């Protein structure tokens, strides 16, 4: 059974049709890339999947459950996690507190009031910071990090609750070549733990880490398949050549 199925998604903003019957199917432990020219609907599709937008029409099922109209919090509790396109770490908080904030999001409020899980979560916070090479700066405010490091922190925060599906919207945006390479290294080990949907303009990066690709154009799916199938697809080549 697919982990995520988005079928017939239509999203209309006023006179603009951002999604026009788009579809996406992601299997467990699959790294799935979502690519397409600017304005093709990638980010809108991510938002409809994550709950930031409710589709005008269509259906999203996750782990066998219809979540089309579920709130972001309900989706997070079902095992979905999102990294926004624009970095949204909490700059005034320390790195440690940013990750703790992400980790404790599904804890009952009564337990939070008495800090009942703080001790138990400490090791997980440190492990996450260690994994993303940020542990030495755990006590510093997130605002002190470089842009690339803030992106890593945000990926660490999205991964901390151990989601079944991680949605990454342009994780390497604004990064140097070296930072992109490291990001690829940091993402590779999570494949054993969760599935990934990634929107990215860097096609080399996508090619290196993804199993399958879906190409959007004009809010609809142009093609979907393995990397090789997409590379050989005449429809995809035509779109990219047309815009080149």
């Amino acid at each position, binding site marked *: 059974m697919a982990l995520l199925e988005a079928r017939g998604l239509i999203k209309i903003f006023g006179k603009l049709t951002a999604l026009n019957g788009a579809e996406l199917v992601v299997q467990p432990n699959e790294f799935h890339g979502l690519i397409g020219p600017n304005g093709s609907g990638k980010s809108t599709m991510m938002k409809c999947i*994550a*709950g*930031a937008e409710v589709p005008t029409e269509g259906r999203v099922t996750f782990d066998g459950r219809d979540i089309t109209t579920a*709130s*972001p*919090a309900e*989706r*997070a*509790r079902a095992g979905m*996690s*999102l990294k*926004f396109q624009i970095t*949204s770490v*909490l*700059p*005034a*908080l*320390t790195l*440690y*507190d940013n990750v*703790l*904030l*992400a980790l*404790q*999001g*599904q*804890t009952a*409020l009564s*337990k*939070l*009031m*008495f*800090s*009942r*899980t*703080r*001790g138990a*979560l*400490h090791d997980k*916070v*440190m492990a996450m910071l260690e994994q993303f090479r940020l*542990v*030495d700066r*755990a*006590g510093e*405010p997130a605002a002190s990090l470089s842009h690339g490091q803030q992106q890593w922190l945000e990926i660490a*925060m999205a991964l901390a*609750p151990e989601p079944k599906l991680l949605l990454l919207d342009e994780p390497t945006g604004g990064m140097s070549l070296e930072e992109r390479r490291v990001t690829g290294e940091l993402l590779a080990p999570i494949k054993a733990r969760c599935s990934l949907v990634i929107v990215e303009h860097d096609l080399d990066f996508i090619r290196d880490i993804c199993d399958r690709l879906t190409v959007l154009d004009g809010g609809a799916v142009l093609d979907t398949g393995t990397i090789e199938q997409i590379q050989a697809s005449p429809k995809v080549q035509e779109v990219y050549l047309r815009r080149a």
Partner: protein
Amino acid sequence: MLAIGLLLPLVLQDYLTVFGTRVLILCLFALSFDLVWGYSGIMSFGQAVFFGSAGYGVALLARDLDVTSMLLVIPAGVLIGFAIALLIGGFLLLGRNPSSVIFVSLGTLTGSYAFDRLARGWYYLGGQNGIPSIPPMHIGSYDLTEGPVFYYFVLAILLLVYLGCRFLTKSQFGLALAGLRENEQRIAFFGYKVQHIKAIIFSLAGAIAGLAGSLYAFHEGFVWPNMLGVVMSTQVVLYVLFGGSGTLIGAVVGTVVIEIVSFWLSNNYQDIWPIILGCLMLLVILFRPAGLVSLILSERERIGSFGRPPKVDDKERDHGAA
């Protein structure tokens, strides 16, 4: 500060002890607003509704039912503040989508205005004159009237509430509040039920305002519509902004400084003291937007940390083991 607070009634004249008690009660009120705005980013322009409603509630208990036992009226005030905040908060904050700051600000401001008008127009509540001559509250056979005992009683309550607020704001729930204040939309994607968190903290702050309102009613011996209105609601905003929102001590410092300066100015410059006070506030807000507390605390120190950051020893040990 606590030491000064403890010594004051021993050195002050009686009328200044009464003034000091009033200031302590207002500090309690300011803490309630600081919880919702300073810590949670919910702009409540109607905090006086909970303060005044509790004051009216206990005044009615005393006037109509002769209930003045401290063990009944103080919990009643807390409960009234909590219940009204829960009702208003439920309406303003528990929608499917998070409410905007403007919606909550205008909603609470309207509530404050409506409660004020209601009290002014309702004969049962004494209309414009409010409810005068509230008998003192008592514990056992002892009547608690204004003076040093009332002062120490309020100081003890303020200390307890302060410590309770500190415990809450430094807890994991406090971290969730910080997340709410910094980026409400983001934390929803971590699984936080942000509307529930908002409703809880709003109601809790309402309970503290209710506690302050009930103490105020018995201390002053009367309640009047201004206790519920926009002026009182704005006053508490100024206390917190002036002292430094998002810090408990800032709320206390802001209240004490504004009240003392107002008291001194009104005695010495009777015609123009509000103008001088307004200019002083403007200067502080212009040059110290984070309030007076920012003179001694950096932003990092004011926000603090919520978790257990690694100790240097731990890191060294880990490196040594490696």
